């Protein structure tokens, strides 16, 4: 089954850098780009611009922290509190090395926290680990 990654990132330069990295880290995966937490929710819950998209959840969400409207951490809190979408793997990919963000991401249930700049190898490793851990949580 083709892997589907939802990338939530508001800065177009970071989008370009991350798409390049993903092409090396997870070749063959389909990547959808959204620009803030609100669009992530619209995508997942088939609302707004995404109401007519084909149903189905992404394999993993790559999430920036600082975004307009709904931030990455606010979105993560909402994700984990909604049973319909709580089980999706989430890896934070952020420029913020503030300890507060890292701790909060961990407490809110992020499956990984990567600090930019990141190599394709590290990104691949973090995604692999996140998916394995989520699979482990799903299968008793």
């Amino acid at each position: 089954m083709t892997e589907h990654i939802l990338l939530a990132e508001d800065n177009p330069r970071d989008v370009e850098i991350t798409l390049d990295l993903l092409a090396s880290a997870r070749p063959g995966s389909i990547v959808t780009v959204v620009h803030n937490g609100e669009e992530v929710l619209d995508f997942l819950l088939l609302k707004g611009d995404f109401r007519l998209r084909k149903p189905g959840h992404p394999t993993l969400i790559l999430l920036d922290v600082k975004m307009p409207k709904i931030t990455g951490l606010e979105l993560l809190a909402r994700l984990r509190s909604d049973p319909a979408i709580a089980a999706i793997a989430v890896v934070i990919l952020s420029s913020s090395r503030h300890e507060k963000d890292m701790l909060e991401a961990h407490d809110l249930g992020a499956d990984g926290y990567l600090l930019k700049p990141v190599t394709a190898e590290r990104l691949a490793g973090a995604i692999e680990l996140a998916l394995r851990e989520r699979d482990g949580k799903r299968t008793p």
Partner: protein
Amino acid sequence: MAMVSIAVLGWIDYLTGYEYGFSLFYLIPIVIIGWTDGAMAGTLTGAAGSIAWSTADYFLFHTLLQVTVWNGFTRLAIYVAMGVLMARLRAERERLQNANSELEAFSYSVSHDLRSPLIHINSFASKLQKQAASRLDEDSTRYVGTIIDSAATALKLIDDLLEFSHLGRREFHRSDVNLNEIVAGVRQQLEQEIDGRNVSWNVHPLPTVRGDPAMLRIVMLNLLANAVKYTSREEAAVIEIGGHEANGNHFVFVRDNGAGFNPEYAAKLFRVFERLHDQREFEGSGIGLAIAHRIISRHHGTIRAEGQPGKGATFHISLPATS
């Protein structure tokens, strides 16, 4: 009389814009102790406000005053003086808390907003270097390389500064710290950097100290990483680590046979961004030792260095055994 006191103090409270911290808490002491002392004691409690003046402190103070100062007017004067002092302490504490909040917000902004553009410069310059390699002449290739290196240096500087600034505000988690384990972990982390080099480690048994494990790990990492760096030009690098306990203190040293330094400038070693070696000789931001110094200070310990140019350096740490 108690009600009159309450009314008068309440008006003073209102008229001074609550500056002197009079509060309704004086009702309780008035009832328990009696109207004059009670009113003043209540004022003192109110002025103490958010300062750590516990109920036990307050009753101890009042009891001591009752026992040692028999003159009512003198007691009144002491209460008023203490009340004013407490109010000023509270105001100063609020000012410092506001300054700290602003610093936290600034640090957060730097942590993300200043790092982002540097990451972009580094990433796109690297892409340019790869994609245009065959089309760039020697000078242009060097220019692009300089852009990449400078962006990486700036990013490291920001990260080091953030680390340094955060140290003072980070919560201190005290526990027994086995320095032997810390050193073993740090050595493993540094293995990649000494790959292919002839480095001898001479590690003696180290004491278990009281402190913050994460912070002490940073100290050992900075000292050992420095030893590895400044011995990089030696054919056979020797790094010795040891420690002992004496006179209620734990002593630890890290010694190397590397580049050393001029002892005339020893005082500069632990200052932020001060370096005693050219970037062309040895890379570095000049903040590692400042970070180590700050951490050891938080442990109420000391750190000092000895050295001679070309004859290595020794860093001595002392930590109180019962910190």
